[in-house]
């Protein structure tokens, strides 16, 4: 039996009948919770509000009922945080130009709707691994562990700017210039520490 994941699945699909899909019943024991949304905007609102949770989004690609399509939702999620893995789950045929939209939107993976649950579970596991192992997610988790007061106090200075931990968290999530720079810095530092250790041995 797979180890339970500390994870919230946000499933956005306007085909209501998918709410009853077997994969949901199948994985309900593997994750903390599964949130189903028929409307992309509502799913997005949930992600925004619960951004501090470990979230994997499963996203339908073609929405019949709305002008908003999968690639728009990808973009919106990216603007909230690039650290939320999005698995596209679609019945549409994906040609080069559609695949291109997914890559551009940083989709984590794409699972066709005629796949078995195992394929979906594998994709969720991979996404969860990324949340666990991605240096940016690790930094995010570390900041989230600090108490609220500490997170609002100036933490570091870079050039003329002073940043609180929350500023850093935000930058890492959005991967703006400072966010990228910080990530690179931490990675270099970690590598440095790791190799120092090797030398001492």
């Amino acid at each position, binding site marked *: 039996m797979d180890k339970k994941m500390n994870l919230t699945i946000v499933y956005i699909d306007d*085909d*209501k*009948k*998918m709410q*009853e*899909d*077997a*994969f949901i*019943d*199948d994985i309900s024991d593997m994750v903390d919770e599964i949130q189903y949304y028929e409307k992309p905007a509502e799913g997005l609102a949930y992600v925004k509000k619960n951004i501090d949770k470990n979230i994997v989004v499963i996203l339908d690609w*073609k929405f*019949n*009922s709305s002008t908003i399509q999968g690639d728009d939702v990808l973009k919106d999620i990216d603007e909230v945080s690039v650290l939320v893995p999005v698995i596209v789950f679609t*019945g*549409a*045929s994906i*040609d*080069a*130009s559609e695949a291109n939209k997914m890559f551009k939107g940083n989709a984590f993976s794409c699972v*066709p*709707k*005629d*796949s*078995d*649950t*195992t394929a*979906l579970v594998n994709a969720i596991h991979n996404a969860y691994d990324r949340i666990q192992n991605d240096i940016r997610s690790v930094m995010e988790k570390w900041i989230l562990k600090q108490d609220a007061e500490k997170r609002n106090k100036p933490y570091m200075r870079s050039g003329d700017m002073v940043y609180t931990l929350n500023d850093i968290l935000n930058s890492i999530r959005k991967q703006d210039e400072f966010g990228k720079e910080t990530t690179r810095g931490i990675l270099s530092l970690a590598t440095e520490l790791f190799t120092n250790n090797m030398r001492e041995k």
Partner: protein
Amino acid sequence: MENNSPSILHFKFDVSTFRLLGRELITDRITALFELVKNCYDANAEKVDITFDSLNPLSEKSRIIIRDDGLGMTFEDIRDKWMVIGTSSKRRKKTSPAPYNRVVAGKKGVGRFAVDKLGGKLVMKTKKKGSSVWHCLETDWTKYSEEEDRQLKLDFEENQVEQKLFTDIDNKYWTEPGETEVQGTVLEISSLNDVWLERDVIRAYRELSKIVRPTLNVKYPFNIKFHVPEYKAYDDKLVESLVLAKATLSYALKYRFDTGEQKYYQEYLEESKGSLVVKEKETEIFGPIGFTIYYYDQEGKKNFTKEDRIDGIKVYRDGIIATPFAEYKSSRDEQKDLFGIDKRRWSGFFEKLSTRDILGWVDITDELNPNIKDSTNRQDFVDNKEWNALQVFVISQIHQVELYLKHKKDYKKKENAEKLKNAGNDLDDIKQKVKRLKGQTLLISPEVDNELDEIASKLETIKQNVSASTKDYERMEEDKRQQENIMFSLVSLQAYAGQISHILRISIGIIKRSAEFVAKWVSLGQKQDKSIKHAHRIFEEMNNLSKAMNFMLSYAEDDSTFEFFGIKDSITELFEDRYHYLFEEENIKAEYAVEDDFELSYNKKAFQDMFGNLIDNSVKAMRNCQDKRIKCSVYRENDNLVMLFSDNGPGIPDEIRDRIFDVFYTTTADLGGAGLGLYIVRTRLNAIKGTITLEPNEFKPTGATFKIVIPLIH
């Protein structure tokens, strides 16, 4: 004219290269000619003259002369490039020298060897601008064949390092004086290998017409002219791009500057009563533009090869393509639909043109259209109001072409029908006149009177023929309408096939995962409730699949042909036979009233299936109602058959009114609704130009009423 000191130049080559390039790559003489002309194109020539002299029968005088006004060669070019086989300076550079920047057409530097295919002897004269001499070179290819034979006899194993593999063949070289301003190259090929029949020249013409690419920017034209004194049809004939020549419609809109008013005026197209008129108006905010559009019907499209594709409207700035993405892409999907031409197709399937039907370009200039700017990534234009206005302009012009195509046919038909009718009336007129003449006995001799009788009788026969023809014509029109109907059904089937594959994929996935669930948990003896739920789900989904299949089958079955059937009979059959049992079982009071009975030419089964879908929906919607009612009324309104279909269920909430005709949309998933029914109804009605709309409910206080309109003359 010959220079006093002719010298000798040598070709450097080995036998295998010669064989490969000269014989194997250039498989026939048309290709050979094609390659030579490509060389002219790559040398930035704007004009190529090809003279075929004394082609049939062959004589001392027989010649093919290819003369261009391209860049020409220096002595060094001849010695180091032309004379060294297998080199290709073209391969290193993908475009010809600026400002032409043509995408190089010639391949692998084999063009010069194409000459071998055409004739045994070549005199080449070439000159660059600025130089005062023509460089002239005479090559006798027959000598190469001799050398080839000699080399082929060499023992390769024993002579591995023997440089004799490379040969020294004498080529006479000399110079001739020329005007400094002139440039170009002349290839005069004699000792021709083959007789050229007229059909060979025609083939050459057709092949060469492909070089003149429709998207070639107009600033640097490339014209090929044939001179064939023996075949008059091709003498002094400009080779036109067949592709453009075969366009079904073409328009080139220009602009002009009015010096008096100091204003620019723009030409534009406007459809009016079945014709397309070029009009003029003040320029819009994007500035004056040139707009060239070609439209191709199926016949026109046949002239296109894979390379010469019809691919929509491009934008050229000062003659150069404005955005790199519009250049050749191997996959259509990679091409950007700059003006959103194809996007519109979703809103109307039949009348909209797509990028596969039209080809053209918008010519803008830096000076006159400063606000049409490339975005920084060169993938698009900056999204400003000028660009938006230009998009609107282009789309509106395409729309005028669409209107024209649509109306032209109708007007023409009407006109013809009118003419036939008039012919009948004219004949009546003449008959009257003959009658009047006959009445004037004083003026008419008995002979003339007899003649008049004969004329009158012949007129009667003609009139009968005309009226028979008119009937034939009407019958033909009717046949044609039916054929069109079938075609529309097929097109809607095509659209449906795309949707159905989507449905199948989703259904199969649902079944697969439910089955996986059942298989997994039942064997573990866990999640029993859920396993039962998913077993049911498999069953329901299978039913959905069956429905989708049946719908597809109803198209595929033999009885899907059109037939005439009475509306009243058909509706009666539905209510009294097909659904009678269901109505009884569900306690539904079903009533129908057919006020006017008509014959409809349609697929009867498809017609009944539409009602079947509506009835199914109503039955599901009314499942929790007490007093269940369904009502269907049919009547005629102008040239339309109108059917109102109502139930007194809970009705359709406002917020989903717009969605009910969408595929997959269902509010009765729990009852096995697949969201297909109304979609199918709408698709089928659209196929016969009918409509279905949701109307205010007939039954009060709640209920749903659908109105179906089918044109009786469709």
